[in-house]
């Protein structure tokens, strides 16, 4: 219990430092060409990633932390 409380306090402390610092990060629109490139996108919604995730979910005991979805088992 004490251990969990300690972890929660550390996590909240980290959030309290990291979240406001987002406001200091200013990338101007004209500097966004690289960030807008497909190679810099997080691809959890691409068809290939979804299909691979579907395979992994059926071979491993955990899922989640990627995206919201639903629909069917397909777990044979």
């Amino acid at each position: 219990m004490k251990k969990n409380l300690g972890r929660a306090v550390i996590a909240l402390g980290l959030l309290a430092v990291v979240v406001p610092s987002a406001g200091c990060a200013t990338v101007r629109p004209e500097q966004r060409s690289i960030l807008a490139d497909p190679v810099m996108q997080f691809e959890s919604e691409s068809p290939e990633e979804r299909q691979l995730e579907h395979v992994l979910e059926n071979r491993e005991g955990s899922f989640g932390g990627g995206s919201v979805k639903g629909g069917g088992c397909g777990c044979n």
Partner: protein
Amino acid sequence: MRSRLSRSARSCLASLGALAAAAISLVATPARAQVVEVDLNNASFHEPSETSQMTVHNPGATLTVLPWDWLSLGVHYEADVVSGASEPVKAGPLSSPDVISQASVTDLRHLVSGSFTLSRKNTSITGSYTYAKEEDYKSQSFAVIAGTEFLQRNTRLELSYARGFDKVCNTAYPPNRDPTVRTPLDSSKGCFTSDAKRQQLDIDIDTFGAAWTQSWTPVFTTQAMLSFGLLHGFLGNPYRGVVIGASGQVAQEHHPENRARFAATLKAKYYLRGLDMSVGGSVRGYRDTWDLLSQTYELEAERYMLPWLRLLVKGRYYNQTGALFWSDDYTGGEPEYGPRGQYWSGDRELSPLKSYLVGGRVLGTWKGTREQRLAGMLLDFSAGASLDVIQTKLEDFSLAGREPDDTTAFVLGLSVHGGF
């Protein structure tokens, strides 16, 4: 009185007027030329095993229409075509190997979904409905995702919720029948009909998610995601039997009816200007109320080999502990009402395991313009191929003491995208 009514009527009319004006202004947004996007893809999964030879083909097609800037509509279809063999009875090292037999598995799963996305300035909301059906399983789910961008679009926050209403076919037995004498489902024949030998059991799934994507510098971006899920209902495999007695007594797999799961993921991408390449990594932690704990670590790099050709390589390491009630053998005198005495599982996914993945993808992309379309009709076109190899190391799972040989898998993916 009349004056009050008249004021409230005026206020009501004013509200309706404002609503109508808002609707008109939304519709009257300068329309971009209509765009239609078509995505076709297929993933083929194969386990080259002497016994199971499991093969799954997963073709899919998505049609997305963007009639206006603020609206996107999508329909999606995919199928799972399954063939191979599996072991219907799980036994531990204390049982005779003769208990293990092979049963052929063939199944066809259809999934259709529809979605819409409303976008306005820096905010968007997506709603979707999905229906999936196979011979022994039905699923319906609704999902809503709302996102907004701020701080000069350097910060994006997203909240999501999905609710699934699933049904699984099972052998008909009274609810109060002792789990130790429940028999596994022998086939999907009669499922979802009025057959008295079959019943359907509910599975409710709630998933909540939150994501924070942040651009820190012109070449560095991160994404943090939290996911919380609740599952309630029949959470086992109705076909699987487990040897639970020293005499060889087989009972249907019996899992707890509730499972709460929590996952947190942190991803980062950095662009190496000198190498014209992006490198990325992610760490994910997971824990659930079945006491399954897992970590996932991923690394990837992607580079333009030619202006139109991208190459991606990636590696992934995953490890998990076993569920609290997991045992490779339930005949060894476990306590009757302990976690392993009350529940039993033959599911290798609940056993302690490690998994390694290496993979790569090549993707060619060609862009046209409205004046000069590709092949006279396409605004853009891309085609990709990917190959992933997965090696699973089962630390505590056996089939009557024998190590399974279906622990290597290959996933070949092909995709085509066209924008009209």
